[in-house]
């Protein structure tokens, strides 16, 4: 049995090794895409999976596609994703708690059924004969693709070009907001504030007991309650305000306690301040 015939239904040991290792990575990447709570992590996992797939393309003789996968897909599209993720809130973590009754079980059931059926279908198809791409890539993979694209698939190629332009225009239309009135100047804004009688002085600054840059920590009012007004509007809308007032108070109390221990004073029953997040759980 010659090597070419062997290539028809089997691969080299190196490729097999590569498949099993990288395939596992790809599956893990896919699973983390689905199950990571933060969108950023999902995007990164997906990027990893895509790079693995690029390697597989290369292994399958699709050199052009492998490179495009890395450059265009992973490099451009995934970065676009990350860009949007940043826009929406990079630190926002999704709750994985299901809100639609039975949705998760139905989804898993359908997924399992579909996967099993698909795998069974592939197994059933008796795909033993592999010709390999050696013949097709004889004049170079890029050349081969190019000759096909510009001859046999030229029509589809043109249409996808039109589609891309349309999509670009569509995206612009969707995201573009036409200004219907002149933007107010700072003076006009301050005059409006005086007229309305709200926040005549500048907004309070964020951060009390600031131990870090503290833009996401609300400032405390004189009575000790945090004021959301002190945090920037964008963070407020994303729900990314960290409520650290109780944290700080607990820290303070702990500090006092340690001081008392050192000074051997009578132990005072410490009043514990729980974090608002924990209390709500």
């Amino acid at each position: 049995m010659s090597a070419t015939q062997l290539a028809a239904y089997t691969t080299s040991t190196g490729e097999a090794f590569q498949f099993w290792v990288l395939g596992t990575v790809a599956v893990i990447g896919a699973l983390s895409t689905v199950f990571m709570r933060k969108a950023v992590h999902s995007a990164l996992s997906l990027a990893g999976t895509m790079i693995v797939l690029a390697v597989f393309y290369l292994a399958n003789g699709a050199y052009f596609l492998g490179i495009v996968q890395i450059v265009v897909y992973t490099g451009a599209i995934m970065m676009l994703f990350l860009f949007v993720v940043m826009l929406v809130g990079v630190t926002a973590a999704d709750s994985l708690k299901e809100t639609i009754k039975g949705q998760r079980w139905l989804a898993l059931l359908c997924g399992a059924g579909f996967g099993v059926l698909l795998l069974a279908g592939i197994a059933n198809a008796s795909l033993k004969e592999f010709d390999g791409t050696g013949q097709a890539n004889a004049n170079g993979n890029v050349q081969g693709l190019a000759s096909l694209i510009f001859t046999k698939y030229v029509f589809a190629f043109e249409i996808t070009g039109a589609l891309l332009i349309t999509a670009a225009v569509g995206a612009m239309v969707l995201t573009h907001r036409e200004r219907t009135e002149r933007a107010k100047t700072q003076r006009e804004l301050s005059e409006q504030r005086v007229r309305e009688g709200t926040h005549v002085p500048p907004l309070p600054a964020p951060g009390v007991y600031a131990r870090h840059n503290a833009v996401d920590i609300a400032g405390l009012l004189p009575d000790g309650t945090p004021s959301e007004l002190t945090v920037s509007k964008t963070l407020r809308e994303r729900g990314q305000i960290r409520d650290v007032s109780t944290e700080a108070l607990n820290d303070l109390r702990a500090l006092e306690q340690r001081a008392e221990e050192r000074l051997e004073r009578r132990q005072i029953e410490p009043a514990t301040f729980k974090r608002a997040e924990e209390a709500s759980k």
Partner: protein
Amino acid sequence: MENLIALLIAAPLLGAAVLLVGGRRLDAVGHWIGTLLSAASFVIGLVLFAGLLGRDAGSRTLIQHLFSWIPVAGFQADVTFRLDQLSMTFVLLITGVGSLIHLYSVGYMEHDERRRRFFGYLNLFLAAMLLLVLADNYLLLYVGWEGVGLASYLLIGFWQHKPSAATAAKKAFLVNRVGDMGLSIAIMLMFTTFGSFAFGPVFSHVGDTSQGKLTAIALMLLLAACGKSAQVPLQSWLGDAMEGPTPVSALIHAATMVTAGVYLIVRSGAVFNAAPDAQLAVTVVGAVTLLFGAIVGCAKDDIKKALAGSTMSQIGYMVLAAGLGPIGYVFAIMHLVTHGFFKAGLFLGAGSVMHGMNDEVDMRRYGGLRKYMPVTFITFGLGYLAIIGFPGLSGFFSKDKIIEAAFAKGGTEGWILGGAALLGAAITAFYMTRVMLMTFFGEERWRNQPTRSPEAPSAEPAAEHRGEHAEPHPHESPKVMTIPMIVLAVGSVFGGAFFSIGDRFLHWLEPVTGHSEGNSPVSAWTVTGATMVCLVVGVAIAWAQYGRKPVPAVAPRGSLLTRAARRDLLQDDFNHVVLVRGGEHLTRSLVYVDHTLVDGVVNGTAAGFGGLSGRLRRVQNGFARSYAVSMFGGAALLVAATLLMRAV
């Protein structure tokens, strides 16, 4: 000559159209137009009669085919008229007596604002009745039949501002509808049985038809006759029909309407002859009605209602005779004609009395009127003598023949029917004498009368409505009213003798109806003698009760029978309890079934689907992910199906 037949109907129909369409412009002359066209129809009838007399007895049937009405394959209805001896008799009676009543109405309705309309209705009545008797098939007859019903409805309810008149008209119409249903069913049966409803084919195929079908048809025809002729059990409308103006009562009772049932039975003689069971039913109906009407007539204080009871009774005689088959057909028609004369005369007389008495109808407020209205007294008296069968007058000849024929029926039936007829003759003598005595003899009770007592049984709203409680001033009616009465009186006196002597009427009608002499167990003279005895007894009892003693102005309580008879022998109560209540219960239970069962099924189905869709609606929760799950599940199923197909 055949072409004249349509003109018979056309003349009064034209009158009706002109008078009803013409409007107020014709108010001044409308009554004369109506009378003239009615008389024209009578003249045409006379011409045709002369023509018929000029022919052989066997060829006295004229057919006029006017046009094909409903030409459908297998269903041919033509407008064809048949003029034979039977219809000729009716035509002369209808147009003759009808014209006299028209003439009388000119005087009677003089002060009525809607006189033109009244004459239009009268003409319509004549036209419908003529169509009925001239039709050559049952469907056309049915048109006339319904036309008579319509015209009677319009005329009975002519004073529609009186609720009682409106109710009476409605009642007459509804009761008639029951009979009409019988006729329409009979026509349908004829069509399915004989394939035709023209007289010729129906009568010629009677011989090869099963007894059951014939009996069914005959009984349906009898039901129809009962409705129109006010026979038991559909008699209840006749008494209330007195709410109409008196000429209408005369027209309904003498010339038209109630005679239609007798005509139908005699015309369908071939069918009845072949269905003895139905014939027996006819005789039973006739005998029962004869006594029923007579008893009711005895108890009524309202002069018109007493006469209405008498009509019912006399028509009962005719139906009885018609039910006897060929023995009685001729006599039924003969009595019908003579009755037409004297009953019209009696009603016109009664109308004349009312006319002179401020529309008072209660006989207990009459009395001694013979001095004040001599012509009315004489004509009414002659009519009275005719109806009780005074020897030599027309009622004597015709009624006597019927009683003889009843006995000639033979067997127990003959004795029972004859006995009933004899008893009826006695009662007739009683109540007619009572009417006569209370109206024209005795004290003048209309003088100084106290205000009407509310419990007077026959309280008539007519007098109140005219707003006259003043003492009436009885006076003779104008000539235009008395002349018809005189003519009719002459007819009542000589008609019977003219018909009977030499059996003229018998020979005239025999080719159409056929005739056979029955085997009477008693001789004709015995029957006549018995009738005379009954007559004398009836008159004597009446004289003892109303002639010798003064008549109380307020009706005494009376025996149970009297009280029942005053209430028309409880016929309305019977109808109310059995039919109205029964109908109410039936409809109520049907409504209940409809609501619970039918609606329940429908509403239940709707509610079921509603609930189902309410549940299914939850699937549409608006979450894109839920829809995606269904899509994905569907995709999985598609994969499974593909695999299965491959596996197979």
